[in-house]
């Protein structure tokens, strides 16, 4: 009990804090990347979590950047390890309580694990909204192309971007 009290943070938090896993960024414009940005600078915690999703709907890469306390950094670092290789459906089921339990967070730090839950959900939501936009061929910025099987004639329709 003594070392825990002396250091303030649990050793699992210290481990993630000193050696955070999967720190970095993914290209936020890429169609297979979803970005979650949660928290508010005024409150002391901002978390960015990005996922890359392969064609089978599996999270194939994940990166995070967090500004905040040790528990917030550890929560997001652990979250990246936890969601790697998961389907989106499984990833969005991860609860803050699981993170808090794994990292042995004290009561006052439960909010950090909640932020990590918010971050992955936000990233998944961003990815899904990107995909639903992409599936609409009539949207601005897209070009429809067709070729007649009989004559070989090619026609294309450009939907000019509105802005």
């Amino acid at each position: 009990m003594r070392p825990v009290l002396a250091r303030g943070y649990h050793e699992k938090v210290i481990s993630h804090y000193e050696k955070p896993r999967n720190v970095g960024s993914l290209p936020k414009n890429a169609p297979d990347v979803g970005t979650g940005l949660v928290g508010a600078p005024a409150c002391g915690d901002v978390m960015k979590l990005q996922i890359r999703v392969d064609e089978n709907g599996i999270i194939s890469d994940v990166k995070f950047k967090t500004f905040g306390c040790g528990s917030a950094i550890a929560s997001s670092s652990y979250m990246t390890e936890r969601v790697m290789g998961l389907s989106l459906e499984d990833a969005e089921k991860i609860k803050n309580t699981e993170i808090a339990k794994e990292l042995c967070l004290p009561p006052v730090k439960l909010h950090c694990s909640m932020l990590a839950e918010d971050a992955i959900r936000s990233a998944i939501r961003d990815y899904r909204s990107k995909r639903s936009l992409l599936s609409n061929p009539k949207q601005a910025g897209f070009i429809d192309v067709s070729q007649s099987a009989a004559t070989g004639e090619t026609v294309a329709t450009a939907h000019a971007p509105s802005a």
Partner: protein
Amino acid sequence: MLQTIRSASGLRLARPFARVLPRAAIHALARVAQDAPHALPSGLVAVPRRSYATPPPQIDVRDDFPIEKYHDYSDATMETMLESLENLLDGAGDSECEVDYSSGVLTLKLGEHGTYVINKQPPNKQIWLSSPTSGPKRYGYVPEADQWRYSRDNSSLGELLNTELSQIFGQDVDLKINKVADCL
């Protein structure tokens, strides 16, 4: 400037589209386009613009709720809660239980039942709760109800604490913080 590539069938597509769209999707687009044939202006390449991330869900600061009022209301709520909890613990007479309030942070230790932390969070004009039973929640002031409420399920701080503490103590607990007006 984006380059274009020429596929085997002679279709000109901007690189990003070729990468984004699998072959089946291109065929689907081709079928759709037959209904509305137009010439493709050569060199016209458009890239869709979109927002990159969902807005941060925590930022819910009401402009019509001045910070002085926030402090008045939250201080009154915290003080009333503290008084009710002290009375509750005195009545229960359990030495393992204790309540402490300093610099906006109320800590309620309930031995084997765990520890509650309820704190003021002035940057977003909220009261935060960490419950050993139900986890973390953030309460904002809702004037229509004169209550501190959690926006995700519209539950109030007073109701949640009354319910959970009643269960823990095996008696009807009312912290008297359900309406802020009653605390002022």
